[in-house]
């Protein structure tokens, strides 16, 4: 087995820079907000150093961007990295806080050699503007040590790897404090000198953990790793150094996230029709926007248009600190074809979905409806509305002779008839039903012309009242 370790020396900084796009001085401070954990090159050129107190850093660089990082935040960012790496390697292990381990021995044949694997990863890292130090090793711990010390080489030769490890100073080998002091007191300075000691002697003089660690680096003790499983849903977050007050400012980071989504969907060969966008504010409750498309979709530009429309409709309630986008619903993609059996080309289908999505995004989901008939005698229940969808069911044809005439307009509810009609035409048609669901209807329907010239569908109910129920429009 051959392991590749990616060490991200300043992962959080890279992450923040990707969401913000500008390159002003920026530091990451630890949870309590006391010490600088990571500093970007711009901040370092101003004199800010890692480990410095925050107060000192601020006095050196007054307009310093400050991000407070906690463990949860770090592990989430790390998982984001695992997600894209999963497209290239199957066996991934998360090594918090800032490392990823991938088994690459099995990938060599797929990519055509170790050199190709190495090159692919370097290209991807460059494309994502991520700083990572890769390292290869025959054991996970060896790969980790090599990567963390920036000694990564593209080689699968075990002897070379051991030689690199042996030349490593003891300080870099990350022993615990007590073991390191004792090793130094014996007079050892390099890791190779530790390797040459017999294990029995090491076991007698040092703690069992230290021996275990040394053997894991060498590969003489098994070091099982449990693989990471990618989550079923898509989630991407963007955090901002400065609060964003205008929705226009959100479109830039959103575009990047949506491109990621498009890649993800292309890679999965799936589509989606529902995005959840959550905007987090400093004080108030987060704003949750559900963006729906009327049909399966994967293109970033379409999603961005819909989100832009939503922002026009609903201005921001408060400045946005961070946002995240989740997609939980994935639909299998249909194979694109020329024309289907109904003479429907992909283009019109797509144009239909685009139009409906646009309208729904602005007017709301309930503003658009389609009509269907229902098998019921009662006029107000003989129809119903459904949400818009593309169908070709071809409604069951009702032959003209079987159904008595019905008006094209139905009123929202029966309207009292205020004047006697000018002429009566046909009737009565008795409609009686609804005893089964307590919505009793017992009416005699007539067609009559009112004095205004309108043809009305009027009825008399069981109490003898006269009502207009529809117009023959």
């Amino acid at each position, binding site marked *: 087995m051959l392991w590749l370790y990616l060490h991200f020396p300043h992962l959080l900084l890279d992450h923040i820079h990707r969401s913000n796009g500008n390159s002003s001085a920026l530091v990451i401070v630890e949870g309590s907000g006391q010490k600088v954990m990571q500093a970007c090159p711009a901040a370092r050129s101003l004199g800010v150093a890692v480990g410095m107190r925050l107060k000192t850093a601020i006095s050196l660089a007054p307009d310093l961007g400050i991000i407070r990082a906690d463990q949860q935040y770090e592990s989430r960012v790390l998982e984001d990295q695992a997600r894209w790496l999963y497209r290239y390697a199957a066996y991934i292990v998360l090594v918090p806080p800032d490392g990823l381990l991938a088994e690459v021995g099995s990938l060599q044949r797929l990519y055509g050699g170790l050199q190709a694997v190495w090159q692919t990863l370097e290209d991807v890292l460059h494309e994502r503007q991520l700083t990572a130090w890769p390292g290869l090793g025959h054991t996970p711990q060896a790969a980790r040590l090599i990567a963390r010390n920036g000694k990564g080489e593209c080689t699968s030769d075990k002897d070379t790897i051991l030689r690199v490890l042996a030349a490593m100073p003891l300080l870099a080998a990350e022993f615990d404090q007590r073991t390191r002091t004792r090793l130094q007191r014996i007079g050892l300075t390099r890791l190779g000198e530790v390797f040459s000691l017999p294990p029995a002697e090491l076991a007698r003089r040092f703690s069992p953990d230290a021996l275990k660690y040394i053997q894991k680096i060498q590969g003489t003790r098994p070091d099982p790793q449990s693989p990471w499983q990618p989550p079923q849903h898509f989630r991407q977050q963007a955090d901002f150094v400065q609060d964003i007050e205008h929705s226009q400012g959100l479109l830039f980071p959103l575009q990047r996230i949506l491109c990621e989504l498009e890649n993800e969907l292309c890679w999965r060969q799936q589509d989606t029709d529902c995005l959840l966008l959550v905007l987090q504010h400093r004080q108030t409750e987060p704003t949750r926007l559900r963006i729906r498309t009327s049909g399966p979709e994967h293109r970033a530009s379409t999603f961005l248009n819909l989100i832009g429309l939503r922002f026009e409709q609903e201005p921001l309630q408060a400045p946005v600190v961070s946002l995240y986008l989740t997609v939980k619903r994935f639909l299998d993609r249909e194979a694109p074809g020329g024309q289907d059996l*109904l*003479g*429907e080309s992909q*283009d*019109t289908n797509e*144009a*239909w979905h685009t*139009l409906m999505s*646009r*309208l729904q995004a*602005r*007017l709301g989901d309930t*503003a*658009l*409806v*389609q*009509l*269907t*008939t229902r098998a019921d005698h009662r*006029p107000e229940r*003989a*129809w*119903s*509305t459904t949400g818009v969808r593309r*169908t070709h*069911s*071809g*409604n069951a*044809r*009702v032959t003209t002779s079987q*159904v*008595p*005439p*019905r*008006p*094209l*307009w*139905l009123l*929202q509810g029966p309207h009292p008839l205020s004047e006697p009609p000018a*002429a*009566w*035409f*046909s*009737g*009565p048609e*008795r409609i009686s039903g609804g005893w089964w669901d307590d919505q009793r209807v*017992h009416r*005699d329907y007539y*067609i009559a012309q009112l004095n*205004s*010239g*309108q*043809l*009305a569908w009027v009825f008399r109910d069981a*109490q*003898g009242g006269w009502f207009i129920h*529809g*117009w*023959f*429009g």
Partner: protein
Amino acid sequence: MSELLETLLQDARVWQGHTHKRTTQVAEPTSYQALDNQLGGLGWPRGALSECLLDTPGIGELQLLIPLIQRFSQAGKTVFWLNPPHIPYAPALARENVSLDQMVLIHTEDKNDFLWTLENCLRSPVTGLVMAWPEELAAREVRRLQLAAEAGSNVCVLFRERRHIRQNSPAALRLELEPDDQQGLKVKVVKRRGSWPGQHCSLAMAHRAGLLQQTPACVLQGPWSGSAR
């Protein structure tokens, strides 16, 4: 004639009433022979606005459009109903052999949404017909819709109140609708392209209620002792 007038005439910037030019407008026939004749064989213009001006619903105004709705819905084109005053009754539409899958009803809250929706529907290639019931439209807004209609090649019919008849409108076809005494529809052409307006005709619409013109009214007379319970 002055020289200035001569140039204007030669540039054809002044329209002259006596030289009739046939329009090359694309149109959908109305399927009512009498009305088609009055409109010079054209019918509902495509890629332009049409206006129907009427006082009250229920005089046969939808029946006038039913042949068009049938054709579009069966051809797989979407028919939009934008802010209809009442519910388009699905059983009646199904009875007219209209494919309900193609009917889309839209309700908008305010006028901006209304205009925006109408514009979007007009510009889309999936649309066949848009029927819209606007509240109040300024001439500027009708103009905006006319431009949107020109961008697509759909039929767009606006139903407006009859008092707007005096209002100037850029619509390509304006019809005034009134009921006649035979349950029919009196159509008066207020404006049309390519010729003088002023034609009128009467369309028999009694079949919309299943009535035949000749038969006398067939209402069974009461008293209904049993029904009043």
